[in-house]
């Protein structure tokens, strides 16, 4: 069963007089539970693709079906709901809210979704334990190491139990060792059935994924799944 189906997706930006085609006629199908790495040089459209997959951006053309429903035609509020329930984001620069503690940051998606405080507390406690952050619950982001911050971010991305996790260079700001740890966490989630899409520059990181997409000039240049089929 495909989780993601992109058909004829095009996205272009107007930069002054010139139109930049970030994505051009993209077709893509990702099944539930896959582990996909999106690679390619800067400007190849990786981030644009990720933003589209995360419903942070709308395509100019084409349709995007998420778990069978067309999400391109949804209103902004409906898209917010889909993001809240089905998609978790992990960013390169963590994107934690600096004034909130680790526990509050993890709880944030639940707070935004209007989940009662009591349930939030139990789920945050479980997440903190699951990511080895029990004694960091009351710390603010600036009191945490890079690895801890990214673990908080991952805990936050998973707290709503989304079907899809989108990670944009999740190890980009981490040293090799902590990066490795973070990738293990993400891969564990994938083993539990979460669909994982990772955007990365890093060849070795990309090689760990079960499927690699190589992007160039807004197109998928190579898809390892196609090669396997041949």
């Amino acid at each position: 069963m495909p989780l993601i189906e992109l058909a004829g997706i095009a996205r272009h930006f107007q930069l002054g007089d010139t139109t930049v085609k970030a994505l051009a006629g993209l077709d893509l199908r990702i099944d539930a539970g896959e582990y996909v790495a999106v690679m390619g040089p800067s400007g190849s459209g990786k981030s644009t693709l990720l933003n589209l997959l995360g419903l942070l951006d709308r395509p100019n053309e084409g349709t995007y079906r998420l778990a069978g429903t067309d999400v391109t035609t949804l209103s902004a509020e409906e898209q917010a709901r889909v993001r809240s329930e089905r998609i978790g984001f992990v960013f390169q620069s963590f994107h934690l809210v600096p004034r909130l503690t680790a526990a509050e940051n993890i709880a944030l998606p639940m707070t935004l979704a209007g989940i009662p405080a009591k349930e939030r507390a139990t789920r945050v406690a479980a997440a903190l334990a699951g990511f080895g952050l029990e004694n960091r619950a009351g710390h603010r982001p600036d009191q945490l190491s890079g690895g801890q911050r990214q673990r908080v971010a991952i805990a936050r991305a998973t707290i709503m139990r989304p079907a899809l996790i989108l990670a944009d260079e999740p190890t980009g700001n981490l040293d090799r060792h902590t990066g490795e740890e973070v990738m293990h966490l993400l891969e564990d989630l994938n083993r539990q059935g979460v669909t994982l899409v990772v955007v990365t520059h890093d060849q070795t990181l990309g090689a760990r994924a079960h499927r690699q997409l190589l992007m160039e000039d807004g197109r998928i240049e190579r898809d390892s799944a196609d090669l396997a089929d041949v």
Partner: protein
Amino acid sequence: MRFADTLRFARDAAAGYPLRTTLSVLAMSIGVAAVVVLTALGDGARRYVVGQFSSLGSNLVIVLPGRSGTGGFNPANAITTTPRDLTIDDAASLLRAPGVRRVAPLAVGTSEISFGGRLREVMVAGTSGSYFAIRGFEMAQGSALPDDDWNRGASVVVIGDKIRQEMFGSEPAIGQLVRVGDRRVRVVGVLKTVGQGLGMNTDEVVFIPVAMAQALFNSNTLFRVLVEAKSREAIPDAKEQVLDIIKQRHRGEEDVTVITQDAVLATFDKLLGALTMGVAGIAAISLAVAGILVMNVMLVAVTQRTAEIGLLKALGASGGAIRLAFLAEAAMLSAVGALVGYLLGQVGAFALRQAFPVFPAYPPDWAVIAGLSTALGTGLLFGVMPARRAAQLDPVQALMKH
């Protein structure tokens, strides 16, 4: 997002930027405090003046020589020349009017008082015993002026308390012979000190019979005739009757002005009320400025927190939730500002009352309510635009700003 969570989020956001928050709260509180203090001043002035007029005596109708163009209080009354004298007989005739209880003639001038080698310039009021009753003066020692024939003044004087102190010190004053102008008169009474009355300090006045005063100043006319109506309701009737009697006596010519205390009060009340409104208007402008400042602060907050807003959207926050959070923050800033300003204003008004005890500097309720609601209103109103801007931010663009 739950309402309690929205409030907590807004509170934390406000607390996260202490300088920005403090500044906008300060601006708002200064605005509200200005409204409270300025209206307290204006309204205090109004009450002070009204109080002073009331202490002039109750149910008062005042007759002035000369016709003023308008029926009300007119500063020109003080400088117009008198076409026909307002005489003691005119005053006495007013007692015939059915609506009148008491009448007191008043002639005023300055002269000297001397006793035992001490000499002092004083204000001399020529009047009758009824004046003391009308004005509600109490005697500290002795008795008031006798209320016998107004045209034949006895050689007596009632002095103010300050005059007694300066002329007699610790010596007894009652029964002493003093010289007022070129007359030798006997002190029969000393007024209880009442302090500042409107226009003249009664502690520094000497009262002599009206006939003697006219002789002393070589004049036939009275400065004023004070008439006390039988009741508050009788004031308009008494005014008519007084006017009729004088007109008859002056060959049908209406050459006096009759003003009632109510008219004077109403004039001053209106005047000072307008003053208060004007002052409140000025203060309201400062509130509007504070509101605009809150808007600026919130706009800066939106810019400052663009990345955060993008993140919230990525985490599934709807535009509505973000709008509400920013609006709640603006409302909080202005609510806290309004509250602090209200307290500051009350402290300011209290300090004013401590510094000037005679001045009833209480802010009127309407000003407090208007000030607080304007503060909240402008805060919310000017919070709408930044909140909308925050809600409309494109999440991708917002996230890029990190």
